[in-house]
């Protein structure tokens, strides 16, 4: 276990940019709902929980690799750089998770959480899409070493699921990978399987990212951009 001081620095590395993204994005959605008269706050909060916070986490995870000014130094210290990146990923996802637990708590208190979700299973509403988009972002970041490209992939995947929910929900195998099964799902009995598949595949994605980060030389080579 590394000292808490190290974690403190990694939180600062994430910077206010990364820390601001999840709450601002959530606030933007709430503001929009308010403009509409704000008659269905619960649904808005649920959408924030399953759609907005995971998106923010995913784009944050996609921005970890490729913009580190001190990368050459990082790669020569005994603390391996990929464990540092993993620490930063934990900070990014952890922050989104903190907010998500808060929002989920509000929903559970106000009864806005769908009936069949308890205090514990309700957490899967945000956890599954958050770790999935986080894993995708981390892998894409490791592969492209460009936050622009990795962020583009995450956001595209997100909007495809928003605009064409039928594309993924149409088949059994792809339905287990649909991110918004709680808010826009069509097959309620598949919910648990969907959540667990998402979490499991997210771990695979992150593991692939971890493997890709093993070669220092790739990280050092600044992309011609």
């Amino acid at each position, binding site marked *: 276990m590394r000292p808490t*001081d190290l974690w403190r*620095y990694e939180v600062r590395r994430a910077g206010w940019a990364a820390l601001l993204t999840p709450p601002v994005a959530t606030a933007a959605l709430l503001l929009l709902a308010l403009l509409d008269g704000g008659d269905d706050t619960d649904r808005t909060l649920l959408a924030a929980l399953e759609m907005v916070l995971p998106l923010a986490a995913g784009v944050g995870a996609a921005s970890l690799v490729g913009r580190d*000014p*001190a990368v050459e130094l990082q*790669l020569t210290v*005994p603390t391996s750089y990929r464990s540092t990146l993993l620490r930063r990923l934990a900070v990014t996802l952890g922050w989104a998770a903190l907010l998500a637990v808060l929002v989920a708590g509000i929903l559970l208190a106000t009864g806005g959480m769908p009936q069949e979700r308890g205090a514990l299973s309700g957490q899967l509403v945000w956890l599954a899409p958050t770790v999935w988009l986080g894993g995708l972002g981390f892998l894409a970041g490791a592969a492209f070493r460009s936050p622009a490209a990795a962020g583009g992939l995450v956001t595209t995947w997100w909007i495809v699921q928003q605009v064409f929910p039928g594309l993924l929900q149409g088949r059994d195998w792809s339905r287990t990978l649909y991110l918004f099964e709680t808010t826009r799902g069509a097959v309620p009995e598949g919910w648990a399987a969907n959540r667990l598949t998402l979490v499991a595949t997210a771990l695979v994605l992150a593991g692939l990212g971890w493997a890709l980060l093993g*070669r*220092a030389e790739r990280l*050092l080579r600044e992309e011609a951009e």
Partner: protein
Amino acid sequence: MRIEISGLVKTYKGKGRALDGLDLLVPTGMFGLLGANGAGKTTLMRILAGLLRPTGGEVRIGGYDVTGRAGRQAVQRVLGYLPQDLGVYPDLSAREFLDYVGLLKGIDDRATRRRRVGELLEVVALTGDADRRLRGYSGGMRRRVGIAQALLADPRLLIVDEPTAGLDPEERIRFRTLLSQLAGERTVLLSTHIVDDVAQTCRELAVLAKGRLVFRGTVDDLTRRADRRVWSVVTAGPAPTGGTVVSALPVEGGLRYRVVASVPPAPDAEPLAPTLEDGYLALAQPGAAEDAMRP
């Protein structure tokens, strides 16, 4: 720690060889590395620091093979490295940055780290500015932060890539003196374009050209390459040809040229005593290269 390099080759994708079959032995102590732009100095140092994987050849540092993961980790535990372009985190102060690097280097105890950072800030004369953000630092101040960072974990191997570039004369001299003092039982590999820095600190050095070793020996050996090849010519006419002009100083009756050439560049040329810089320049001249490898 001895560095033993044999047959080292590094090819960048789509480029020629940056290192072309390099054999070199770097003993414990201070060792200088000279070479023109693009000669391969940074590439060599990055391989030694475990940043790049060689395309071919062997590198052993203190007995460890740096091409393997275990060897690389063992070396990185005792390594202080100053990259040619050190990027810093602009939102941190110098003290925080060093504290963070200390953590990355495994100095987990807070009090130890604080003390060490304080000492090093003193060494690089940044104590007064230590709590300002790095964003507002001048180029030379940033280099000093980089130097302090390299010394943090009391490294047994110090690899510094052009550490004195951009430092003011006082700081430069202070730093190179510090390096010499540190050397002792450590290995310090210093690459630079400032030949004088090598002359003042190293006993031994190597010169690279186009990825190959063109000289390996003592400072005196290299200086002697320019024996009977350094001339002083005063002329108001065109610059002397057939050699390398080292300097041109305005004097009465024209310019006084210092020229490195195998034959006197003018009938009235006067011979001068060579410096290390003259020896380095003489290496690049025809006739000098053949016997360069002879110690």
